[in-house]
């Protein structure tokens, strides 16, 4: 933690960056994301293993808009998010300084995008053994049962869109759920309308989700949304041999084509 602070302070005092996104102490003994604009403030910066929120989210928010260079305390999830955002033309290397933290919590110093790609490859994804077991359970279900499982699970969704708000990949200025001419997704929360929202969300993240799990953590009714994304990640890997969040020149499976793409689904 001291090392992180040291780097952050130095970068700020040398005006190489004008803000650092990190964590500070919040209420009820919790940590919360924080934005430090001068070196003295950095004293309040903390980093421990409860600092799990995906800070990359803020790179696309107004708070970063007019800042020439933003420093960001980046655990592997954040690094993968930044790489993925870069591949989608959403962030620029010259406007970001990544202060990398490994999954064990060790500071690895400043990473440029090239180094970030290398770093991301060495870091395991945060899939816990119980997540694996859950996915296997779902995948063992016959199709209809699986569909019904998700219909039931999503039926409790209240359409608060916290999952969307917490996802660094959900950066669209105008989300489809806000489009009302035509009204693609019903406004009210009901069984099938919820299903429409979640199918759309899953498809939009297929091959792009970097598996940070933020969506599930944000959900007030405990829907395991990220499990659906995980399954899609596996699927994209099996079918297209690509994975999001590892290369800034990545072409997502659903919006790219090559002359060796499988055509076996054309019947």
């Amino acid at each position, binding site marked *: 933690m001291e090392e992180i602070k040291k780097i952050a302070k130095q970068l700020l005092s040398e005006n190489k960056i004008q803000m650092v996104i990190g964590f500070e102490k919040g209420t009820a003994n919790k940590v919360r994301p924080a934005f430090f604009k001068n070196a003295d403030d950095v004293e309040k910066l903390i980093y421990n293993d409860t600092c799990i929120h995906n800070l990359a989210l803020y790179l696309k928010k107004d708070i970063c808009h007019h800042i020439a260079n933003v420093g960001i305390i980046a655990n592997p999830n954040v690094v993968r998010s930044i790489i993925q955002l870069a591949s*989608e*033309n*959403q962030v620029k290397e010259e406007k970001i300084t990544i202060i990398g933290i490994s999954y064990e919590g060790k500071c690895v110093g400043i990473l440029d995008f090239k180094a970030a790609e290398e770093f991301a490859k060495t870091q395991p994804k945060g899939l816990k053994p119980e997540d694996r077991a859950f996915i296997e359970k779902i995948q063992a279900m016959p199709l209809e049962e699986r569909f019904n499982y998700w219909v039931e699970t999503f039926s409790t969704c209240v359409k608060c869109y916290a999952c969307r708000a917490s996802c660094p990949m959900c*950066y*669209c*200025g*105008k*989300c*489809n759920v806000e*489009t009302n*001419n*035509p009204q*693609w997704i019903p406004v009210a929360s009901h069984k099938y309308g919820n299903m429409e929202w979640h199918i759309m969300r899953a498809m*939009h993240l297929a091959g792009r989700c970097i598996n940070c799990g933020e969506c599930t953590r944000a959900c007030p009714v405990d829907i395991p949304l990220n499990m659906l994304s995980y399954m899609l990640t596996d699927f994209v890997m099996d079918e297209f041999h690509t994975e999001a969040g590892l290369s800034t020149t990545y*072409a*997502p499976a*659903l*919006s*790219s*084509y090559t002359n060796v793409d499988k055509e076996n689904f054309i019947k």
Partner: protein
Amino acid sequence: MARIGVFICHCGENISATVDCSKVAQVAATFPGVVHSVDYKYMCSDPGQTLVGNAIKEHNLTGVVVSACSPRMHEPTFRRACAEAGLNPYQCEMANLREHCSWVHERNEKTDDKAIDLVRMLVEKVKRNNSLQPIKVPVTKTALVIGGGVAGIQAALDIANAGHKVIMVEREPSIGGHMSQLSETFPTLDCSQCILTPRMVEVAQNPNIKLYTYAEIESVEGFVGNFTVKIRKKAKSIDESKCNGCGLCTTKCPNKKNPNEFELGMAKRPAIYVPFPQAVPNIPVIDKTQCTYYKTGKCKICEKVCQANAIQFDQQDEIIEVPVGAIAICTGFDIKKADFFPEYGYGKHKDIIDGLQFERLASASGPTAGEIRRPSDGQIPKKIVFVACAGSRDPAKGIEYCSKICCMYTAKHAILYKHKVHDGTAYIFYMDIRAAGKNYDEFTRRAIEEDDAKYIRGRVSKIYERDGKLIVVGADTLMGAQTVEIEADMVVLATAGVANQGAEKLAQILHVSYDQHKFFSEAHPKLKPVETNTAGIYLAGACQSPKDIPESVAAASGVAGKISCLFSNSELTREPLIAVVDRTAPPQYSSCTGCFMCQSVCPYNAIEREEINDRNGNLVKQLAFINPGLCQGCGTCVAVCKSKSIDIEGYTNLQMYSEVDALLNF
């Protein structure tokens, strides 16, 4: 308020025998927004069109749904009729009651219901149609011809003679293509060089044609009427403006033992060379991989002997950029070499040659001055075996198609052989004799009847060497598949015609489609045989599939006709049914997030990056911009855009949604 008119056509009895047209018209009259609904026997007839036009005026219609046949048939007819009556043509839609309904169902109530649903969908759509204006784009009246074989030559001359500029790009040091290597040509046995050379010279002399040889296409951008092409002029090491073609350098070059490509390895050439005597332009190039100076830093004899000071060892490749309005692909084909055939010894027997090599042996300007002598020892072969369909029509070899020209040139080879070796015997193994064409069958009969060619129907299973002879083992399927063995002095394989090297790469540069064999694909096998799927790019000759000279030339003239039509207007009019990215008020400017996933899927490279800057010139946002000249309205981008920022005019999300809504929620 929408005022929609519905016009139900009987199509004679095509629709009315199955669908109750007057009922459909009555029900349609009750749809919200419909102010006029009628049925009529032939809506596309003159009185039918007048009916539509009068109704537009009389009822002040804002939209029209003609419920008749496929819009592919008559959409232009009715849109024109609407335009004449003063309605924007894009306010006219067609519901397909024929192909989608009457032709595929029985006469009953459900069929009527379906017809009603189809009309309802289109009524809902047309209410949301925008009035559109056709797009006008300017045309650069210069054509690019890629490849200077006989097809390219014909296309270039025809376009130039129509008064337009032509830029011809040929990858080899000379134009001429395969035809310049042929001896005599079927079915008339004209000398190939004699009929081709005047055309080659014409290309060089025509003031409308600019020729770049030893050059390749580096990149192509833009769209029909407005392409920008980068051409790489490979360094010839010769200053073309100074060289007068005296040829002294080529005779004095001491490094003369390099394989001669034009003679297919059956002769040698110097490191500085002109590929063949009639070459156009008659300017040598230095083969840098062979030249002693480039290899060792010493020699420069050519430089010393050149009176014109034309040798330039330090010449670099040059890239030039040219604007063109249309492109003709004429890059021709190639043939498989003997090393493609394990059963014939992988090309290790010198006297098993391919058809092109035989052409060179039979050619007066070839390595044997026109005498048929076998490559191994220069003897005149007394027994010669021709193998047709070598590799072609053989799914096991991955070439299931017929190479088309081999039957004919094999018959020609047998005739030429007999003319030159009177006491020799020619055997031809064949599968079928395919000689469809004017005077073609007569030609093959002549080989059999007058020139004594011995046709054996069957495939050759193997060829091996025994005591200086080539033993050809095959089956005669007309004699009960009896095994035949021929002790031959020489074997000529009529190997499969295949796509030219580099065809795939060129297709990718041009963004045109190609088939699984890497031949370029035409836009429609019958109705658009010389067009590609990309507007303004055409194809002619053997780059499309193996073709003989008459076919290649006919296609080339076809292309020239197409391009001349294109160039006859100073502006092009295009259907405005293309994609557009939405615009909203600042600070968003557009719902587009600038992810450019649409850019990577657009098959026509129509999507560009547009920058929104503030008044100080700082970048605010990058957005997708769709080039209206390039977009073909395929809709692929619409499918990948997550924020639904793209709409196809005439097929907007809202229009499509309304159609589905009209179907489901009624």
